[in-house]
Structure formats: C-alpha cells, structure tokens
C-alpha cells in the first residue's frame, strides 16, 4: 500500500474513532453516584480491615493482588524475552569489555570523584529499600522501590565500568533473584491455604497502623515485588549495556 493511501486510510479511521470517543463521554462528564462505590468501599475498608495507610498499595497487593501477580509475570516474561533476544548475539563471557565511558574513566576522573560516585550507591540503596518497605505507609512500594534499587546498579556501572558491573551483578545470580521474587509472591499467596483460606488471603498478623509491620502480607508481597522488579531492571540494563560494548584484545 502506498504511504499516502495508508495515511488516508488512517485519517478516515482516526476521525471515526474521535467521533466514537466524543459520543462516549456522557457518563464521564455527568458522573452518577454509582461510579464512586468501588472507590468509597476500598477507601473505607483499607484502614479498617488492613491497618494500612496507603490505600493504593493495599489495592495492589491485597484487594486486587491477583492482577498484580499477572502484571509481575508480564514484567518477568518481557525481561526474559529481552535477554533471549539480546544475549544470543555474541557470547562474550570472560572477555574484557570496554565502551566510550571507559576512556573517560582512564583519563578523566580522579579516584576521589570515583569514590564520590560510588558513595552515592549507599544512599540510593537505602532509599530504594525504604521505598520498598514503606509501601503500606506512604507512597511507594515494590514497584517503585525496585526500580530505584536497580538504578543503584547503574551508578556502579558509571563509576567502575562494565566489567566490574558485570562481575558484581553476575547475571545468573540476578536471574535467580528475579525468579525468587516471583516465587516469593506466589508463596505468600499460598500462606492462606495453610489456614484453609483462599489464595492471597492476608493471614499474617496485621500489626499496628502507622508502623512498619502493619499490613500483613501486603508488606511481604511488596518486598517480593521489589526484588523481582529490581532484578528485572538490572537484567535489562545488563543486556542493553552489553550491546554497546566491544571486546578488547588483551595485551
């Protein structure tokens, strides 16, 4: 199909879709009370039933935890898919890999600057852990904290180069963490069975509100999710970084 014909076809379709959107705006513009019932029910149930202050985390990891299980597996499958696609291109195990940043590292920064960069890792990790573990109290949780933890690994790469990054990350180990995160989620879900309750039932003691131990399984699932998300993003980073490096002949 010629490009112009394609654009014409698309524009015709787009005008139609815009029209469809336009006639479907009614309930959104003039909302009725029923729209609010789910939100209201959850907002009032979260604190009363779960001692949790961040409602969104409660929805994610408790009320609609099964959705989150699915979402986690989308993440897992996408990460594994990217690894399959990128890893097979060349086998570079054990080789010294360098990129443009390495040249900068050779001449540019003094050890002091490198130390500064590395010193940033600690607060970053601490922040990530904080976000992962406080998901039931304040905005945050496994998904956000996991990505923050992964970005700590990025700093390691910036400071020390890919070879060190690779050795610290050690790809099989990270994959194991990734699987362990998924397994952790599934396992916490199974806890309910021990008490003869349905899957994903929150059977762990709920603790006191406003405290770190509140929320029961919400905190545990958040932790497992944090592990999986962190490992997933590190693996992606690893796969994409490796694409941009060339092996050097050792002299």
């Amino acid at each position, binding site marked *: 199909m010629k490009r112009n014909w394609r654009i014409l076809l698309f524009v015709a379709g787009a005008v139609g879709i815009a029209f469809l959107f336009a006639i479907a705006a009614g309930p959104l513009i003039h909302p009725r009370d029923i729209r609010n019932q789910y939100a209201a029910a959850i907002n009032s149930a979260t604190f009363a039933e779960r001692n949790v202050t*961040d409602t*969104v*985390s409660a929805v994610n990891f408790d009320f609609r935890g099964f959705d989150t299980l699915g979402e986690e597996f989308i993440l897992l499958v996408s990460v594994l898919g990217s690894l399959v696609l990128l890893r097979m291109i060349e086998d570079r195990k054990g080789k010294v890999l360098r990129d443009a940043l390495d040249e900068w590292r050779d001449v540019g920064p003094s050890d002091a600057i490198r130390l500064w960069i590395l010193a940033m890792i600690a607060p970053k990790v601490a922040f990530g852990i904080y*976000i992962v573990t406080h998901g039931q109290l304040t*905005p*945050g*949780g496994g*998904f*956000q904290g996991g*990505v*923050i933890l*992964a*970005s700590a690994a*990025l700093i390691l790469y910036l400071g020390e180069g890919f070879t060190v990054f690779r050795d610290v990350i050690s790809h099989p180990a990270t994959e194991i963490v990734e699987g362990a995160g998924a397994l952790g989620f599934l396992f916490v879900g199974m806890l309910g069975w021990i008490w003869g309750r349905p899957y994903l039932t929150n059977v762990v003691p709920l603790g006191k509100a406003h405290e770190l131990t509140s929320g029961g399984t919400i905190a545990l699932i958040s932790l497992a999710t944090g592990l999986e998300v962190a490992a997933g*993003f590190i693996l*992606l*980073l690893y796969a*994409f*970084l490796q*694409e*941009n490096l060339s092996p050097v002949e050792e002299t």
Partner: protein
Amino acid sequence: MIYLQIVTLALVVASGTIVALNREVAGQPITVSLFGLILALMFMVFQEPDVALSQIVVGAVGLPLMILLAVAKLRRDEQTMQREKAREKAPKERE
C-alpha cells in the same frame, strides 16, 4: 489548583505530540524523558503520589536509558554495516 491541572494537561498533550511526531532519533531519549517527567507532574497535581513516584523512576530515568542504549546500539550496527559495504565495494573498484 484547577488552572495548574489544566496547564499540566496542556503540557502533557504538547510533549506527547512532540514524542509522536519527532522524526529525529538521536534526540528521542531527551524528549521521552521530558514527557515522562511531565506525566509524573500531572500525576502529582491530580493527587496520585504513588503513580507519580512510579512514573518518575521509570519514565524519566529507566525507560529513556534503555532507549538511549538501544539507539546507540542501532547506530553502532549502522556503522558496522556501512564499513562492511565499503569493504565489499573496495576490491571491485580496484579491478
């Protein structure tokens, strides 16, 4: 507050349009990262701190980094291909 909300919506539309219509590839990581930040701002002003945090860490840092690395990789491949093409051509010219 409501004006701020309308302004952020306008910003989202503008930056989204730029991302969709941008023909440049090299600049895309920057525009995507900007778009991600503006989305995060929108989540913030619409009382969605959880989503905003998620969007900041992913949309403004994680995703643009992947794009940057992918674009860099594509460029490297492009150069390799050109070099190969040049190498294929070179002997013919000598003849």
